[in-house]
Structures are given as C-alpha cells and as structure tokens.
C-alpha cells in the first residue's frame, strides 16, 4: 500500500509514520513537507492513501528555503487541485488545529470537514484531530486505514 503523508511538522510526521507502520507493516510511506512537493508527488505517482495536513508552507523549508509563506488552507488547496485534475486518492486530513484561518476566513474543524465532504466527496474521507499528548488520533487513523482495506 503506497501512502503519501504531506506534513511539515517533523515530530508529527515521525509519529504518524511510526503509527502507520504499526498498523500496516507493508506500508510504503512517502513524505512531502509542503504544498508544492506534495502536489508534485501526487501528479507523478499513484498513491493508495493520502494523509494531509491543512496548514503547510508553499515549498519545503530548509536552510536555503524559507518556504515562501505558510498557507493555513494549503490542504484544502491540494484537495481542490486533486479534484480539478482528477487525481483520485482517498484522503484523510490530519490536523492539530480545531479552527483555521482568521477574520472572515475563520472556520472550525467541523465546518471545514463539512465543506470538504460537500466539495470533494469522491476523495475526501474525513478528518483526524491530532494531539501529541493524546492517543485518540491513533485510533482514528487505525479506523480509517482499516476502512481502506475493506
């Protein structure tokens, strides 16, 4: 099973990868750390499952690259692009945030979940709320992955 994780937080990435390997030992995990690198992978490789962070920099951050900017809705933009370009990969959003954006763009996780379900029902499978000090996200991830196997 080829799994792509698009996540810019290295701790979170590490923990998610470890958890996936626990759940599915034969998982082939590919990591991307930004909107751009995630999109490039999605456009060039066929994945079976995508775990997607919502808030991401445009480019992978490194000592030479400041990432251009961090967009609080990058994950939504990736889903939009996948939908537009007919890239059908079952996708679960995994986020540490319970609200997104600010001002008139502010929305709760539930609202975002609803919007994504309505707009991208063919690819969007749901959302996992990630909290490093809790274990619930692991259960949710397991449930989603089991559904994938079904």
């Amino acid at each position, binding site marked *: 099973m080829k799994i792509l994780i698009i996540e810019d937080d*290295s701790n979170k990435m590490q923990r998610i990868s470890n958890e996936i390997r626990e759940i599915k030992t034969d998982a082939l995990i590919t990591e991307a750390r930004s*909107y751009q690198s995630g999109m490039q992978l999605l456009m060039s490789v066929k994945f079976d499952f995508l775990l997607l962070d919502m808030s991401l920099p*445009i480019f992978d951050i490194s*000592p030479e690259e400041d990432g*251009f900017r961090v967009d609080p809705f990058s994950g939504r933009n990736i889903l939009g692009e996948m939908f537009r370009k007919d890239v059908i990969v079952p996708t679960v959003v995994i986020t540490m*945030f*319970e609200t997104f954006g600010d001002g008139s763009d502010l929305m709760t996780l539930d609202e975002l979940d609803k919007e994504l379900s309505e707009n991208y029902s063919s690819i969007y499978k749901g959302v996992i709320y990630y909290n490093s*000090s809790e274990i619930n996200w692991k259960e949710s991830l397991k449930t989603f992955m089991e559904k994938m196997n079904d």
Partner: protein
Amino acid sequence: MPAGFRQRLYNSKEFNPKKVFQDLQAYRDFNEMQAVANYVANPNNPFHRFMFGITFARAYNELCTYRSFVLTDSLQKELDWMSLSLVRYAKEISQFVKQANAFQKTFLLGSYQQASEILETIISEFGFSLWSLEKTFLLAEYAHGLERNKKELTNIIGDEKNDELLKFIAEYISLRCESKMSDENYRIRLSRGIDFDDDFFVLVNYLRYRLEQIGMDLTSVATHITYFEGSTPIIDRYLTFITILQSCAIADQEYSEIAKNVVVRLDGLIEDLRIDSLLQLFIPDREFECNTLAVNMIEVLDNYTNGYYEISAEMASQILTDNPESYEFYYIYIRSLAHIGKAFNQFFPEDSVAASILEHSNVIIRGKRLYNRSFNYLSKLSTSLWRDPLAYGLFDFYVEEALPSQEKRIHKLMLLNAHFLNPRFAIIYEDKNNADKFLNQLSSQVGEGSTLSLMRAITASSHKFDDVQLPEEIPEARRQIYLAEIYEKKGRFQSAISVLQPLLIDIMEDKLPGGFYSCERVAGALFRCYLERKQLAECTDMVVSSFLQNDLLTKKLPLIQLVKSIDETGPIDVMRKISYPILYSIVHTKPREVYVAYDNFLNSMGLSRPTQLFDMADEFSPSDLQEFLLKVCTIDVLSCSYHFNGTKDLETERIRICQFLSEKDQTRLKIYSDEISSITSRSLIREGMRQIEVSKIHVDEKGIRTTGRKLLEESFARYRELASMSSIKNMRVLNQESLYLYIITRDGKVIKAPISTTELKDPVFEKQIVHNALFINFRELFMDVRDRFISSGEHGLDGYLSVRIRHGVLQNQIRSTFEALHLISEKDTTTEEYLINPYWDTRLEDVSVENRAAIQEQLANFSRDVDALAQRLNKELIQVKTEKKNTDGLFDYSFSTIELYQIFVDEFLQITDFDQFMDCLFGVLWTRLKINLENIQNYISVELKNTIYESISQLEREIRKIVSQFQAAELLQNIARCQTNLQYSMDSVAQWFTISGSSIVPQFTLENLVSICIESINNIYPHKKIYPENYFSSEEVIIDGKFFAPFFDILRTIMDNAITHSGLPPEKIKAQIIVQVIDNRLTMQIKNSLEKQVRESDPIANLKTTHSLIETAEVTGGIAKEGRSGLMKVRKLMAIDLQRKDSSLDFFYDNEENFVVKLSMEIEELCI
C-alpha cells in the same frame, strides 16, 4: 365627540385621558379617530396634545420628550393616526415645505447668510424640530467649518434639560454633517453607536431610520418609527410620513394600497411635489397642470433627445442656476457637453455645494480617474442631505454608477422625490397602460415631443415581436442604444447583440460620438445579452477589451455572474482564451481563484509556465498578453502552481516576465523595473537573513596567528629545544580523574589499564607525569593557542558567541515564536512577576473572570518556564567550558592531561616546523569545534525542543482543564500552531551553530544592510516592531560581502539597544538611521527617542564613564562581559572585524533629546 369615546373618557372609574386616546389610536376605527380629531382640533382644547402631540416646539428640550402615542403593530392605524395631525396642520406644513425648499436652494448655492435667515424664520414660525437641528449643523459645518458644527452640538448636549434621546440623535447628526467624514466611516461609527441589546430593537430601528436612512425599505419597521416620531413636532412627523409613504408606494400591493388610502386624504391640502408625485403614481390619469418650470424642463429634454446638445447644455445650466436641487439637470448638462466633446464649465458660485456636485458628477459621467473620490463625496452628501429631495437624486446616481447591481427601488424613490412633470416619470409605472395615461396627460399639456415619444417606446408593451418605433430625431448612436435596450427588454437578445456589437467598436474607436458614458451603457447592455444567451466566450472577450480600453467601463458590470457561469459550465472555448484568466484577475482578489483560470488556460495551451508563452507572443494581442503577464502571473498566483521548485525559481520566473514586458511595453517601464528591483531586493534580504542565520559561529584563525605569532614562535622554539633533550620512550602518564593507568607501548600507542590506589601514590608515576618537560611545554603552548581560539576578545569564539548569540538574540529568538502567537507574557523586572497578557484578556471576554485569571496564571507559568530556559541557555549552556570554568558549557574545550598527551603523541611529536605545528594545532581545535557544534545542534534539536514542547503541552492541558475548546478556540489554535513554528524556530537556532563559510551575500549596499537589519530585528521582536526613517545621502556604495556579518552585527546591536533601553513602547520609538559617505569616510548615525525618566537618568554619562577607560586599541578587554549596551562590541567589530584603523564611536543627545550613536570609519578596502 362620538358618544362611545365620551363614555370612555368621562365615565370610567378613573379619569385618564391619555389612556383613552391611546385606546383610540390602537383599537378604534378611522371614522371615530377623525371625529375626535375634529373635536379636539383647537390647540386650546385640553385634550389637543393627546391627539396631535407637541406640534410646534418652543425649545429643543420639548423634542423627544412627550411620548403619549402607543406602539401598535398596524401600519394602517399608525398612518391613519398620523394623517389626522397632518390634515389638521396642512396649511402650516405647506408653508414649511415652501420655505424648506428656499433654504435648500440658498444652501446649495452657498448663500449661507441667506440660508441662515430662512432657517431662523422657519424656527420662529414652526418651532424647533429635528429638521431644524439637522439644518443648523449642516449650515454650521459648510458655512463656518467643523468647530462651529461642534459648538452647536455642545449647545444641545450641554443643556441638561434636553432629552437623552435628542442628545444621542444630535451627536450623530452632527457627525453626519461633517464634510470630511466619509460615508463609510460615519456608518461604521453609527453601527457601533446603536449596537444595543436585542431587547432594544424598536429603538434601534428608529435610530437607523433617523440617522442612516436613505433608500432603506421602511415597510417592516414603519410602526417603530412612527412610535418614536410621535414625540417630534409636526414638521418632522410630516417628513417621516412622506418617507414611509414613498417606501410603501414602491413596495408590494398590500403596502401600496395602504399608502394610497392615506395619501388621497391630503390631496389638495398640502402643497408639496412629493404628495403630487405619490398621487400621480396611484392615480395615473389624475389631472395636473404644467407650470413654466415643467415646460422648460421638457424643452431641455427634447433638445437633448434630438441631439441639440449646445442648446440643451445652455438651457440646463439656466434651469440649474435657479433650481440647484434638480439633480436631473446636472446630468443633462454634463452629458450634453460630453456628446459634443466640450469642456465642463463651472457656473455655480465657487466653493458652493452645487459647484461641488457638478464637478464630482462630471468626473463620474466622463469616467475620469478620481472617480472614487467623487463617488465618496456624492454618497456622503446624499446621507447628509437625506431630508431633501436632492439627496435621492444623488443617491440614485451613486447607486447607478458605483454599484454593479441595478436598484430599481432606489430609482423609483428618486422619481418620487424629483419633479414628476417629466416624461421619465412614466418609468415608475409597472403597467404600460398607466404609463400611457400619464404620458397622454403630459402630451395634452406640452405636446408630443421626442422625449415623450421615446418614453412611449421604452415603456411600450414588452411583447417580443412588436415593432419598435423610435423618434427619427434622435442622433444615430443614441438611437441604436435605445433600440438595443428595448430589444433587450423584449427578450430579443440576439437582435440587441447585433446592434450593440458594432456600436461598441465604433464608440470605442471614436467613429461614433458618445464618449465614456455611452460606451459604458453599451457594454452593460451587451454584457447582459451575452449572459442571457450563454455566449460566455464573447462576453469574456468583450469585458476584457472594454477593461483594457478603460477599466472604469466595467466597474458597473456584475462580473461575478459571468465568472459563476464559467465556473459552473467550464466551457472549453472560454478556457482557451487569454481573456479568461484576465477576467478572473479583474474579479478576484485571492490569488488561488485567479490561479485556477491561469492554470486552465496554460493547460489548454499545453504549457506549464508563463514564460513559455514568449515564443507564441504573436498569437495574442499585445495588450492581452501584457495584461496577462502583468496582472495574472503575479508571484502570488505563480506560487499556487506546482511547476516551480522554490522561491528562487518563482522569483526568477517573475523577473523574466518583467524583463519581457520591459522590452515589449515601454509605456510602463517604470512599473516593471520597480518590480524587478523589489524582487531583487527581497531576494537579497532573504539571502542576508539566511547568512545571519547560518553564520553565527566564527573564529578568526588568521587574526590569532598574526597577532600571537611572535610569542608563539618563541614558545615553539623552546619546545623544540626540549624535544631534542628528552626521550619519551617508556613514558607513562596517569589519568587522575578516572584512576586508570595509561601506558605507552613500544609501537607508540597509549593504552589504559586499571590502577590500584597504592600504585597511584607511587612516586615513579608522579615523576613521570610531572617531570616530562617536553609534554608540559607542549601543553602550555597548546593551551595558549586554545585560549586565544576560544576567548581572544579580538578573534576568539566567545567574542562572537557573545555578540551574535548571547546578546539578546537567542532569548529573543525563542521568545519570538511564542510572542508572535501571544503566548508569552511580559515580566515586571522590579517585582519579577508576570503581567496580565492583554491580548487574551480582551480576546477571552466570554470566559468567566475566574477562568480568565486561571488562564493568565497558566500563561505566566509558561512564560516563566520559557524565560528560565532561555536564561539557562545563555548563562550556562552557550558558554565555553574549560577545565576550570563553565562546567555545563556546551562548547567543551576542556582537555584532560591524558587526552592531550594522546594528541601530543599522535600528532605533534614529529613536527618540527612552526607553521606546520600551528596548522596541526588549529586542526585539533576546529575538529573539537565541529564536535561541539554537532552536540549543540543535537541538544537543541532534541533536548531543548522536547523541553519546550513539553511546556507547551503542559500549557495546553492546563488550558483545556479550565475552558472548553469553543471558549478558547483561538488560544488553542495558537498553541497548536506554535508547536510547528517552534520546530522551524529551533531548527533555525540549530543552524546558527555551524561554522560560517564563504559569504552568501556577495556584495551589498548600505541600504540593503539597513533593510535586512530592520527585517531581522522585527522578526526577533514581533510585537515591538520599529520602522526607522532612513536617509542615505551619498551615492550608492557597494560593499564586499565578506563584511556583511560585522556590519550587520554593529547595526543590530545598536538597534537592539534602542528597543530594549529606550524605555518607550515600540510604537512610540522614533528612530532614524542616517548614512553618509563623504571624503572617503563612512558615517552612520542611529538615533532613537528616549522615555522621559530614561533620559533623566542620563544614560550617556554612564556610558561615557565605562568607555573612557578603554581606548580603541584596548577595546577587546570588555567584550566578553555580558549584560551591557554592546557598544564595546561595536568598537571591536569596527576595529577588528572590519579592520578599520581609524574608526570612532561616539554617543550624544541631539537637539530633540534623542539618543544618538555615531560611527565613523574610513571606507577604503570595504568597497568592491
């Protein structure tokens, strides 16, 4: 008096006339009300006020006080009740209307003295009213200015006899009359002012009507308005009555019927054109008589319709001179001149309101550049004047011209407030027969002129296949426009398009007259017809070509409808057009939305980057391609594409686009070159920031070798001499710390073996260790160089650590991550207590006081943990450890005897040449530095990160115990975000601990340096940003990139002092950086203001005391001492790192008591 009423009044248990009259108002029929009204009509009748209220107020304190009327939910009853008062005082009202019109005319013409006299007469005859209050403020503002306006307001507010509601209303009317207050600003303030609890909705509705109303639909709130208006004088009630009737008249049938039933009671009683207009609307065949003004007006219109523009302009200006309140003639005058391409001529008195109306209308009608300012002016004036009929003309024009959707309601309101004896009044009728009845009446009075015939054609049956008959006299271009609009109305969109398409081209190319306004009108009609026929590609092309001709041409088009249609259907023919992404860039402000069109278009061309279009440039019109490249392919839009591999790639693409545009379009050369320069500068700042981030560790090996050469050579010579005398065979040494015996084997290796306590005391070992003179000599030499390497003030590691890391930088970097998200509180340094975090104190208003305090406590605990950690890092960990000091220091330069001996044996024993010896020795020290740096990076990336991470998690857990997620959504969002940000921040800190290599910045100007430094400082202090004024009074000097770091360190240290020592909050720090190069000397002056107490403490005297002890040559002695101003370090940086032989540092106060640091140095060898 009706018997039933008399019964209720006199025969009830208690005599309460007020209650009985309220009962009459709320529950009795109109006939009974009317009978009672007749009975109490005499003002001397004791019950008069219960029926008619305070009709004429003798002072403002009588306004808004007498609330005798009851609040009902029946509009019919309210209007019935009100109408009885108006009928009773019809004569007075007619007189008032006449004088109010005279006031309006004189006011508009700027005859303020005359207007003031009329106002005084009105007040003396009809008493004080809200109307007189409005006009008093208006006159004060326009005749004398803001101060007089506010003086009048003070008179009202300062009089304690005045009702509080009156004072509130007065405050906002005064605000509304302020000529410099924008409409938007006024409305924002009013919204805040009337943001009462829901329980007060009746009052809020009334205040919105009183203070905001123009064009508001009053039908649903009319009873709330009439309730409060019951306490106003008769003239205010009359004006409100008219406003409500007008609102009802253009609403649905039910409201229209109510209005009709009421207004007929006033027929022939009140002389007011507004009453006549309402009656004309309800009774289209009502007989009327045209007066001279009406005849003249129709003559002007006929001349205009027939294309006799000189005459229509001349006549319109004559009418306006006497009737400046007739907005339709401002329009005719300007349009007439526009048709014949004649310049606008101001005929109103200078500085009068009428002159301003004419001027601003001209700007809008002719599509001039400053139209936004003109829109704002007219919109605000309509709000200020809304009691006057002119206000509706202005507002309708504003809505028609400024807003994309057409507001029929507003247009009808305008018609009801304008002179109805005008053929265009026919438009108000929904039914063609009613329009005909009206036009027939008009025709019988003034004859069937061309305007009248045109109106007949426009209002004619909407049957699709009816022939369209237009007067032959109308000039061709306008005839075509009317024809197309009539086709559109009949639903014959293709016929309309076939007329409009060539017409638009001809007008745009000036083959037909009409100018901007006609162009805009044709584009509007064509747009609607294309949309109706789903000709989206043609519509998109038309919009974009019009936009490129004059962007104002499309301001009124509801472009979002077109975009929506494209989004829904995704037509391929549209996506292949370059106009498609241009349209999206006109409509959308968010880059993502523009990107979708950009990407679809490039995809349809088989391209991934816009620069690939350069080879196909001939396939597009130059203006389309340039617009696409300039406005669509912005860096933010490009960043949404996944075909770029980083910021640099993105910027290079944009620079190439700007370069291409520079070649193709010379007219906008400056725009392109400014953007290239801005991108280059941004890129340099980024590079500079990167250099600062990755090059904090430095040791000046060359400097150490040079300055210490003489002494070191001497020591080395002695070492070599000893080497020739001693043998090291069989030498054994002891590691005293770990009680192991180390033995040198025959092949020269050192091995360790356990040792007993007895053996340790064996004098042989002691002798062998202590008395090996060669090793001891080596160790001295080694330690000498090591000490220079780590703590030489001029060249050593610790000096750079002090300047670049410990001087507030590390602590602020850690804090900044949290500060940016408001998670850290400030500390009161005298009490060591953490203060209330003001951001969350206001943001968590919905949280109880106790819980808010608990959250603040947790934030304080968190801040304490973070600060303690930062302190420990600075004072204990980012320190150089030797055998004798800083046992926790992460820069471990301690060498045990055994370790050193192993090095000695392995690497130095055979070396006989001094330079080779020094190479080897520095090799050891650099290797140790690399190991240290790896350890430190590891510490930061793992241990430090985890420690802070744990503190954040702890904070989150504690907050969640106190409040729910919904109560503190933003706080929890920030905590989550800071977990990711912290990683970047810590990775960035870890990057500091690498050895600086070659300069990333190859060269830089002093302006670059200042920009980078300000950016860096503002990153470090996200809530204490400063924006110094910068002056560069010399020609551009380009400095070698190798000097970037020391220059940066100098400037940053001084600016850091300004933030931390000025005693002022950042928004109050006035800073200035002045850079000059004169006669080969560079001087930099950095000024900052000081808080009063700080200034009184005389910081310069303190600094001078410290610095006088140290001359430039001895500057390095004080560097390592922490916690000072850093100015000692600045001296060192100039003298050593910049190698300036003749540098100086001075500080003083300037004439304005600012703290000034002045640096001066020779420029030679700094520049490329």
